[in-house]
């Protein structure tokens, strides 16, 4: 059966929360709240996370990997370039002096951490992204959007739920 997208717009988070709760508890054919429901909001709202249920964020793993790689890479490259002068007279000083090398290692630790965190953000947030099937500029202004994907036959039921909670506008489009 073909899929359809529905976007309902709400005035405030309370209404959006009520809709999400009802959708999660409803038994709509071909609709799974975990995968087929997206909340779009103009601000970062911790309560959205609460009513949607906790979802893991993996950006920190990118951060850890990036920072460690940056630091190790820096130290290896610097120590390598210094070690290539092993035959030079150093006057008793170490060929690879650890304390001054730590400064650049530290800088590269941060550089790697920042770059890879940003890369991780883009991957985890799915950016750059194409426009989703339904989008309203009102979401970037002051309204909360609830986008759902469901089978054709469930559209009426979804519309009923949206309307019950005073949706300001409902948009519908055939899925891909």
């Amino acid at each position, binding site marked *: 059966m073909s899929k359809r997208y529905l976007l309902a717009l709400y005035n405030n988070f309370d209404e959006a929360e009520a809709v999400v709760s009802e959708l999660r508890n409803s038994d709509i054919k071909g609709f799974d709240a975990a995968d087929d429901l*997206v*909340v*779009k*909001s*103009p*601000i*970062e*709202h911790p309560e*959205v*996370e609460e009513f*949607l249920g906790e*979802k893991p*964020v993996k*950006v*920190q793993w990118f*951060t850890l990997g990036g920072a460690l790689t940056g630091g190790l890479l820096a130290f290896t*490259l*610097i120590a390598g*370039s*210094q070690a*290539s002068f092993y035959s030079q007279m150093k006057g008793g000083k170490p060929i690879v*002096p650890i304390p*001054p*090398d730590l*400064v*650049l290692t*530290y*800088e*590269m630790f*941060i*550089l790697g*951490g*920042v*770059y890879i*965190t*940003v890369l*991780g*953000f*883009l991957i*985890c*947030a*799915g*950016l*750059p*992204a*194409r*426009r*989703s099937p339904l*989008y309203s*500029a009102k*979401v*970037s*202004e*002051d309204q909360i959007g609830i*986008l759902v994907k469901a089978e054709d036959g469930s559209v009426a039921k979804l519309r009923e739920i949206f309307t019950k909670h005073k949706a300001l506008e409902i948009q519908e489009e055939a899925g891909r």
Partner: protein
Amino acid sequence: MGKDIREDIAWAQINKDVLKSLESPRKLYWVILLVAIAMVGVAVGCEIYQYNVGLGVGNFDNPNVWGLYIATFIFWIGMSHSGTLLSAILHLMHADWRKPIYRFAEAMTTFSLMTAGLFVMVHLGRLWQVYYALPYPSERWVWPNFQSPLLWDAMAIFTYLSSSVLFLYIGSIPDLAICRDNIHQGWRKKLYSILALGWEGTDRQWRNFRITYLTVACFLIPLAVSVHSIVASDFAMSQQPGWHVTSFPPYFVAGALYSGCAAIITLFIILRYVFRFEEYMTLPILKKTVRLTFAIAMVWTYLNCIEFAATWYSHDEAAKAVLIEKATGRFAPFFWGMIFCGSVVPFALMVKKWQTSIPVMFAVSLLLNLGMWLERWMIVAPTFSHGYYPWTWDEHMWPSMVQWGIVFGSFGWFTLLFMVFCKVVPSVSMYEVKEMVYHRSLAKKKEEQAVKEELAAKGAN
């Protein structure tokens, strides 16, 4: 003290007001832009002349090999710390009053670092020799000295600049999406569509955004401290009298935060007027920034005293002679000017009535920055002119108009970049102001509810 922001501002109104700033600023904006372009013209002219004739036209000689360029380089690096303070440190401390003003502070960080970077090349005279400071081997596979603070500096500034640009950009994505949705034609529409990366404010995007922003903020704080500590190491790790001081790194960091905060006050006042941001850049927020600046001014003053005391009691006669020379010799007016502007003028920030007086705060912030620029000059010049060997002393060298012209033009360059940025990217973060308004209105509702319940309980009794 009044409210930082009105809780009843409609979110749509926030978008409208901020987007308007991208299209129709006051006429003063164009005046500032033209003056900035003229100032850049002066600097470009001086640089072309210096490039063709040689560094001698700057009146550099031996021992005065570092002049205004390095002093101004430190000044601009210091200026960049304000963005990190307002964005990262206050973000971690949940000080939400920073929200309407942190974006332009972040932009300040980026553009002041870009301006500082130029001075490294200007100072070299032969611009292409900048590669000696980059981790790149020569044709004989000789690498630069990785133990030199100058190389650390190049790397630290690159790290700080690129991380600040990313931090500024990531934090602007939701606002760029607002611009994309509200500007319907022309090059701006295309630009915002590309830069917004298809942001739609989904729960997945916000979730990852929050963690990313916080993580990068956490990285930026130690990075900012390391950058100015390394700049301080350029001096403190040398054997020059007056520079070999243990307290130099914290002294430099405090000075950086201080000049950054003072510059924030200046730009706050300019942007508030030019872009009609009176609703967002409010006087209570100015007051908080002023108080923060005063606190940092006192830290800087304390560290200054530490530096003087350390020199005075260290039995390092050469360093002591430099200090005496600064206070009584040719540099005395500038040295005492620095003390006056940096340590005495800040007491004006304590006067309650003046804390919200736009003209007074504008004048004070300019004086504070003058003091901080003088501080950097007083670190660089006196030491060179009064070194260890009396036969190298040269207190009569005065920077030529070429040096002054390039320093003057750098302010125009910074202003030009900054003002163009504010016209293209919203200088007030719309989504963060909405969050601020939302959370404050929730708090107000809760407060009213509690009062009602209390009254009801009293009535029942």
